[in-house]
Structure formats: C-alpha cells, structure tokens
C-alpha cells in the first residue's frame, strides 16, 4: 500500500527531543522507509514566525524534491501582513501550492468571518483545503469554523485521542470536516470512525517530525477496516481533495 502524507513540517525547530528527525533528508529517509510516496509540507518559520518568508523558504527547500509539495501557512491580510485573495491565488498557482494551513490561536487572530472572510472566501471559491492543528480551534470553536465556512474543506491534524465527544457532533453537523490520522489514536479509533462516519473523511498524515511516521502508517495498516477503506485513507481522500483545487 502506498501513502501520501497530508501534513508534515520542514525546517529547524527551536527545541526538540534527542534523536528527533527534523532535517529534510531525515524526513525523506523516514518517508521512504514508511512507503510514503509524497507529502504536503509546510515550513516551521511560516508556522512559528514569519509567515510569508517562511512560505518562500519552503519553496526553496523543496525545489528539487518532487516528493514534497508545498503547503502554505496563511493569515488574514490585515495590515497587508499576508497576501490578499487575488495575489494569493496567483502566487499559489505559480508555485504549485494547493493547500493552506491556518493557526488562529498561535497567530492571535479571530477565526470568525469578520476576520477571516476574505481568506476563507478564497479557499471556498478555489476549493483549497485548509489545515489546522486541533488545538488551534478546539471544542466548540471547531464547530464554529466548520459552520462559518461550509464550502471550505477543513482538515484537522494533531488531534491526539481525547476529542471524540467534541468531534462527533461536529462531524454530524458539518460535512466539510476531515480528520488527519497522524496521532488519532483512540482505541479502535479508525474502526469506530469508519463505522459511524466513513473512511472518506479520514486523511493520512504523520505530523513529522514531532509525530511518528512509523506509528502513523502502522495505525492505518493494522486498522480493522477494509482494504478499500485503507486505500482511501492512505492516499485516496487527499488525492481527491487536491484534485478538486481550482486556482
């Protein structure tokens, strides 16, 4: 089975545990070992500091690495801190960027329409999937963001295992929410999810380098679900989402 990682991170972290594989060639090595053919990658500088510069850094970093596709971090364009919709569309099209990542808590901005209407309007119009870590819009905020922008496909990553009582009602109410499987590890998590919600809302990802690719692939490979469901999760769903992008 082949995998496509919907979300991993490149770049030098400020702090990391001993042995953590953060360098690009280490990440590529683990991807190869884990049968991960390709990945969407964002840059830590874009995520942690300077968004536009970090996005540019990302492009330079992966220019000669066909397995890695760029994922840009995004902000509302207030004070021209980020690109407005038209410029963003052009830049994404020019650079082969098909997904965005937001971080409203970390970037200290509201996720409500009064603040993010332009950015999300663009994402909806161009069918650009938007990623964020669950911690950036947890609990009721997850519902709000999915409900406020029903035409945007959202993928939540870094979910851990304790969110199902919050997640379930949002999945029921909002068809535009997808779950990155990286560390979605409730006991029988994928089986239960597929039983109540269907495999086409699950998207394989690793959360590399802070997450484990070996764990992430094992989670899907060993899940007590059908081969067809595994294929959808491993690469099918993200390929479909990416194929729908219209820049």
């Amino acid at each position, binding site marked *: *089975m082949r995998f496509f990682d919907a979300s991993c991170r490149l770049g030098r972290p400020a702090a*990391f*545990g*001993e*042995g*953590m*594989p953060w360098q690009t060639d280490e990440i590529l090595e*683990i991807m190869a*070992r*884990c*049968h991960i053919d390709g990945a969407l990658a964002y840059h830590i500088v874009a995520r942690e500091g300077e968004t536009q510069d970090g996005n540019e850094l990302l492009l330079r970093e992966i220019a000669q690495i066909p397995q890695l596709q760029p994922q840009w971090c995004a902000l509302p364009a207030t004070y021209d801190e980020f690109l407005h919709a038209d410029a963003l569309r052009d830049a994404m099209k020019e650079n082969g960027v098909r997904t965005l990542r937001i971080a409203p808590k970390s970037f200290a901005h509201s996720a409500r329409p009064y603040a993010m209407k332009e950015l999300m309007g663009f994402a909806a119009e161009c069918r650009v999937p938007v990623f964020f870590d669950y911690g950036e819009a947890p609990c009721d905020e997850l519902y709000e963001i999915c409900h406020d922008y029903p035409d945007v496909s959202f993928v939540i990553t870094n979910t*851990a*295992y*304790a*969110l*199902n*009582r919050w997640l*379930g009602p949002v999945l029921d109410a909002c068809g535009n929410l997808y779950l990155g499987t*990286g*560390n979605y*590890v*409730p*006991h*029988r*998590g994928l*089986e*239960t999810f597929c039983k109540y919600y269907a495999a086409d809302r699950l998207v394989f990802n690793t*959360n*590399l*380098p*802070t*997450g*484990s*690719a*070996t*764990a*992430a*692939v*094992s*989670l899907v*490979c*060993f*899940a*007590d679900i059908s*081969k067809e469901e*595994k294929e959808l999760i491993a690469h099918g769903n993200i390929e479909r989402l990416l194929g729908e992008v219209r820049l």
Partner: protein
Amino acid sequence: MNWEQYIFEGKPFEGIYIFDVHGHVGAHKPFQLGGYDADSVAKTCRRMNVDGVVVSSLPALASDWKWGNEEVAASVDAYPGLIWGYASPNPFYEDCDITPYLDLPGFVGVKIHGDMQGSTPVNDPRYFPTYEVANERGLPVLFHAWLSAEVRAAADVARRYPNTKIILGHSGMTARDTALEVARTCDNIFIDTAISSTYDNAIEVLVDKVGADRVVYGSDICFFDCIHTMGKIALARISDTDKEKIFGLNARGLFSL
C-alpha cells in the same frame, strides 16, 4: 524477520512473543474510549497476535478502587492467559487492601496512578503497605510517570523496595531524560513505551540510553490504541533481538511467566 512486510501488508506479527505491560479496562470520565471492556481489549489483542496484556482498571485508579479491581478480576477470569491483572490501591481508604486481589490467579503486579488519586506522590507512606507486599513477592509495579516529580518519586520507591520491579509508564513522557537517568542508576527500574504520540527514533533513544533489556512494550490499550506503538517498535532501527526483547521477552522475565 521482515517487519516492514508485515506492517505494510497489514498482517499482525507472527512468531514472536508479544506481551503488553501497560493496558487498561474500564471507561475514563473525560473522553470516549473506543471499546473499553475485556471483550474489546481481548479482541484487539487476538487480532494483533498479542500473547498477553496486563490491565489495570481506569475506574480503580480514578473512581471506586474496589469496583475497579473487581472489573480487572472479571476480565482476568474471562480471558485467562490473555488478560492479566494489576491490582490498584487507593491511599485514601484505610480499609483498602489489595492483597486479596494479588492472591488471585492471573494478578501479576500493581498499578499506581497517583495523579488521578488526588495528585498523591507515589512515595506517599499510605502506599507503603502495598509496596511491602509487592517487595515480598518480587512483583512489578507500574507507575504513571509523566513529570519529573513523578519519576523521582517512583525512583524513591524503587530504592526503598529493591525487590520490586518498577516500570515507569509512558517512558517518563515529559521527563523522559529523568526517567532514563534513574533507570541507569537503579537496576530494578524499567521503561515502557506507552505514548500516544512521539517522534520517530524515540525507541532508539531508549535502547541507546538504558539498553533493550530495560525497555518493555506497553501500549496503554484501551486508553488509546496499541497498533501504532507496535509499528513504532517494529520499524525502529534496532536489532531484531532488541525488538523481541522489547516486545515480550523482557516482560516474560519481569512477570515470571
């Protein structure tokens, strides 16, 4: 053994002894568990060719110690030889004596989660009667070990009761380096692998720092799933011998199985 082939074909490992030192039965109040009764745990173990799992009851740790330990006893009864039991004391109850559980067939150790029990340090004297029994019988004691203070308290217990075998749960988690340090200084301290999310190479670090003989497979099933941890060990860049030690041979010795 071609671990990769097993994983990518979705085929549970064969021909190796897998013993999970860190499991649970029972529900947990703050979030949904995808199947937490003995049947569910046994089903996962059988599917994944796990030879045995030692479980404590989440309600025994966080709710009614007696009801929870009964839950473990029932689980052990239902799946003898597959599900084994940790007995869990509660320091607030003077009448809490878990020796009757330890006397039951299938009970092989003690699990303590001081954080769930009013944030009580595990070297609180109210736990000492339990440790005395464990020491006398040479039993493993599994601690939840997430913070530096918890690791150091566990190490204190290890030193006071040298005939026990102390397992630091979750590899010490945020205090992993402290856990590895105390494991190096205390022969009766072992490290389990039960972490929901950690980076690749983390298993290699454990083996490098304390040796594969002191690392034991623990998954935290049913608190969360076990299959990702199995994959992490299987695909770690350590020898097959070390993997087999971690997966079960060490535990076989620890629990005298």
